[in-house]
């Protein structure tokens, strides 16, 4: 069962999960996205709610409607979503991280070196995975 949380309106979550798939490259530009009814059956939600989620992405220009065929990922959708998410990155991720670091008495220099270290570890772990 796909997970949806309680706090956010469902249609926002549906839009968010489709957007995730586009950002991750699961849904490439020009491909058809699942229909309202397919989404409703998959997430076990009301079709009107699914439609609201899709329409939200249509309004943002991420999806486009082709009459009689369905909804498709618009050209440039991935870049657009990436740009929007980069804008939110500081607020959503860096802010809370810095706040927690302050709380624990981790100074800025230590924090920066931790970030670099983690990033290096992730990179080598990924490379290790690829060469195998």
């Amino acid at each position: 069962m796909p997970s949806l949380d309680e706090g956010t309106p469902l249609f926002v979550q549906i839009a968010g999960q489709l957007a995730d798939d586009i950002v991750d490259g699961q849904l490439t530009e020009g491909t058809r996205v699942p229909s309202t009814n397919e989404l409703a059956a998959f997430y076990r939600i009301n079709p009107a709610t699914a439609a609201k989620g899709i329409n939200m992405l249509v309004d943002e220009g991420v999806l486009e409607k082709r009459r009689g065929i369905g909804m498709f990922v618009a050209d440039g959708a991935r870049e657009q979503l990436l740009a929007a998410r980069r804008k939110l990155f500081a607020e959503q991720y860096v802010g809370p991280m810095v706040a927690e670091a302050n709380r624990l008495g981790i100074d800025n220099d230590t924090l920066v070196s931790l970030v670099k270290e983690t990033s290096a570890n992730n990179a080598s772990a990924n490379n290790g995975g690829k060469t195998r």
Partner: protein
Amino acid sequence: MTPTISVAGLSRRYRGHTALDNISLTVEPDTVTGLLGRNGAGKTTLLRIITGLEFPTDGEVTVFGAVPAENEAVLRRMVFVREEQSYPDFRVGTAIRVASWFYPYWSAELAEQLIADFELPLSRRIGRLSRGMRSAVGIVIGLAARAELTLFDEPYAGLDAVARQLFYDRLLTDYAEHPRTIVLSTHLVDEVANLLEHVVMLDHGRVALDAPTDEIRGTAMTVSGPATAVEEFVAGGPVWHRQAVASRASVVVPGPFDAAAQARARALHLSLEPLSLQQLLVHASGGAAQEKVCA
């Protein structure tokens, strides 16, 4: 668009007891509405009046723009599946066939699929079915009728969680392909929350809540953390529920929670946990009572 159901100033009083107290609401066409509330809140009485089985004491109810009581033209457009519905002691197959004659949009194909899904024994007499099987007969008829207005009143007595999920899934799929107006009366709120577009909650014969599900979700939160920080956060605001252990406290507060409020909670190291629809309804009715006690 004309509402499918329109209720205005409706009251139903029995000797010494008020089941419905001046309620007004509308149900829009091609939506799924949850009719929620505790036992005795008035849900069944309301559905019985909508389906013409009972008369209002005061006020007016119209369905498809007409008064439903003794109105064959209106009644044929709706199907009402009741809790623990009684049937004549037909065989299962006969009961379903008789139902098929009555409903103009009956789908034999869907009926067949549902009979297989619920593994209903067609040749067994209804009187010899288990409670759950009897409920399944009602569900088959209620869905296969594809009536323009479909009303389910706690239709799942004796059905286990797997069978109930089957019911919700079939309802959703068929509704998506054949939109119609559905009213689902239930107290298993969290099981159906995601299917509902609109929620009406009755409490002691009155409408306690009448809103789109989207607007209700995430409005109330449980705020927990160090007691002093919690108190600072809620200072002066309404609190539905309070709980404390040692130096930690947890309170339920109605929202809405804007970005500023969330940032304030983060700064105080508080955790915010949204309420499920079920919890929200419990607090919405219980909270009102608590405030009365305080006043």
